[in-house]
């Protein structure tokens, strides 16, 4: 599995690319060297053979066969080149060291390659031969051993792929170097992305130059973040203004209702109606407040207000707050804590509200005489808070939906406040790098909040 995933990495792919480029270049260079040396070898050979053939040819025409026969022997002796073979068939007879000359005296004029078996040697000779004939019936064969050329030809397939493993090694080193250089750039970007998504919206690349595409990328990223931050501030400002604009008339409205309700000569029935109307207004305000709190929790800027807080103390405060109403319903409210206090970085008010919502729901849905249990414990390097009740639970098909805003499990429609409650809990959990999970248990319903023991800097 690990090898498979390595094969998909950028560094492996670039290593392959570099290797291919490197290897193909190596092969091309070798082919060109091969062609060059072959041409040179043939050229040298032709030069030597032509020189001897021309000299002998001139002498045959000028001095006749007898002299030339001697000249052949003299040349062979003086040259002392074991690869040079000369054969002359003239009216004066056969001379020279050309092997099995009788076989080749009928050859046509010109260049050709022939293979002959050597008299002294059992290995056949391969010769490059120039053949010429003269008016007096003489035929001259000048040949040169092609052993050197054949060596070059035979060496090619071997040398073509030689040292490719070295090329591979160099490619890997090069690709690692390249990746390292690339990563140095990319790392800076990743740091900015991590910081910004953890709530430090003012973190920037701060590129100074504009030399390459990386600088341009950094400048563009900064520009985009500036824009997003402005938009975010604007929408937060809008939320505040909206809340303000709604609250002021609601507040005025409430004041008026209260003033009427306070007048002495009001019939008691009207007074009661007014009071219930005020209570409904308060519910509306509470809903507005909850929506604002969710948007507050969802805007990660809030993390800037975080302190180190005692989570155990918040849980204890909430349970002590809810204990009397649990008692009124004859519900056993149990808590269990680890011995030492659990501290996390966060916001006491938001966490208190979230935990309060969970306990509130649990008590609401648990029938008289039931039990609600809060368990705070360390869990996988973080903290988990479980709130379980033995109420009816939530229909399985509603479980995923109940965390959404304004959704309320059908069977609980008659009890107010479920809708926004859990989405607030989830928003607060996420703000604290945590999560909310809900499940039905054999005995009821359980909500679990999980947090890492985050430290904010």
């Amino acid at each position: 599995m690990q090898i498979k995933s390595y094969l998909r990495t950028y560094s492996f792919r670039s290593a392959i690319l570099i290797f291919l480029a490197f290897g193909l270049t190596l092969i091309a260079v070798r082919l060109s060297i091969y062609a060059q040396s072959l041409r040179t070898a043939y050229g040298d050979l032709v030069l030597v053979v032509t020189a001897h053939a021309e000299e002998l040819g001139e002498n045959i025409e000028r001095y006749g066969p007898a002299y030339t026969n001697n000249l052949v022997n003299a040349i062979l002796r003086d040259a002392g080149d074991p690869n040079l073979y000369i054969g002359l068939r003239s009216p004066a007879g056969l001379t020279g060291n050309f092997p099995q000359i009788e076989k080749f005296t009928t050859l046509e004029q010109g260049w050709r390659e022939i293979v002959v078996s050597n008299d002294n040697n059992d290995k056949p000779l391969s010769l490059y031969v120039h053949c010429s004939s003269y008016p007096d019936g003489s035929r001259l064969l000048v040949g040169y051993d092609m052993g050197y050329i054949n060596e070059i030809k035979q060496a090619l397939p071997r040398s073509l792929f030689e040292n490719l493993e070295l090329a591979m090694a160099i490619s890997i080193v090069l690709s690692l170097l390249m990746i390292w250089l690339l990563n140095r750039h990319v790392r800076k970007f990743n740091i900015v992305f991590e910081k910004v998504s953890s709530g430090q919206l003012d973190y920037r690349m701060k590129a100074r130059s504009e030399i390459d595409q990386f600088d341009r990328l950094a400048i563009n990223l900064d520009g985009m973040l500036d824009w997003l931050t402005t938009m975010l501030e604007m929408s937060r400002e809008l939320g505040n203004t909206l809340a303000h604009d709604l609250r002021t008339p609601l507040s005025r409205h409430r004041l008026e209702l209260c003033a009427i309700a306070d007048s002495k000569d009001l019939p008691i029935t009207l007074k009661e109606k007014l009071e219930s109307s005020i209570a409904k207004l308060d519910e509306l305000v509470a809903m507005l407040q909850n929506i604002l709190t969710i948007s507050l929790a969802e805007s990660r800027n809030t993390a800037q207000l975080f302190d180190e807080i005692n989570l155990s103390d918040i849980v204890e405060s909430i349970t002590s707050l809810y204990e009397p109403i649990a008692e009124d319903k004859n519900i056993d409210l149990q808590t269990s804590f680890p011995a030492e206090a659990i501290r996390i970085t966060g916001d006491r008010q938001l966490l208190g509200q979230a935990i309060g919502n969970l306990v509130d729901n649990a008590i609401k849905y648990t029938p008289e005489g039931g039990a609600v249990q809060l368990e705070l414990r360390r869990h996988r390097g973080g903290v988990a808070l479980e709130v379980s009740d033995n109420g009816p639970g939530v229909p399985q098909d509603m479980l995923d939906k109940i965390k959404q805003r304004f959704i309320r499990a059908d069977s609980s429609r008659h009890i107010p406040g479920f809708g926004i409650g859990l989405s607030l809990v989830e928003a607060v959990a996420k703000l604290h790098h945590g999560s909310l999970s809900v499940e039905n248990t054999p005995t009821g319903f359980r909500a679990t909040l999980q947090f890492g023991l985050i430290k904010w800097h």
Partner: protein
Amino acid sequence: MRILLIEDDKDHARFILAGLKESGHNPDHAADGREGLFLATEEKYDVMIVDRMLPKLDGLSIIQALRTAGNRTPVLILSSLGRVEERIKGLRFGADDYLAKPFEFGELLARIEALARRGNTPQAEQTCLAAGELELNLLTRVVKRADRVIDLQNREFQLLEFLMRRQGQVVTRTMLLEGVWDFHFIPNTNLIDAQISKLRQKIDKGFAYPMIKTVKGSGYRLSAD
């Protein structure tokens, strides 16, 4: 009690001024920030009620200016900006309390009266609180009424301590939530009623007269008569 109200909304101002006068206080009113700062600097007040969004000069700037000039008059911010972070911001600027609109007039009155008292009598380090026949010892954590020891749980003790330190004053449900549990949101006002009713079971039941009284439309008051 001399009170300065800095509030630009006419309806709110009218209602608050009427309420304050009815409760026997002597309020002044400024309808914009600059006038408010002028009055606050020129006159001597026991407590000030300041809105945040004001024409000419905003509420936080007024408070900052007063605090920089050494003016220590208790300030309550009364604002439509009710989010937790706004509250923290207000207190950081030097306000003493924060109340979000819409509000109950009783809540506002209880809070400014508490602020004014806190300003007048600096709380001495006490080890024992007493209200009539009720005694609370902060060191031994023993509570007695008419010499009968009353067994209280930790939070009940804190709740009673909070009430006894403000005996004779109206204490609202949200003041109790803030003072005893340090929560600045309102989960459910029934919670405090249930807490008080449980405390009453222990403090008042079986004694000559009830000490914890319900003040309609506001909250509770502990008194020795």
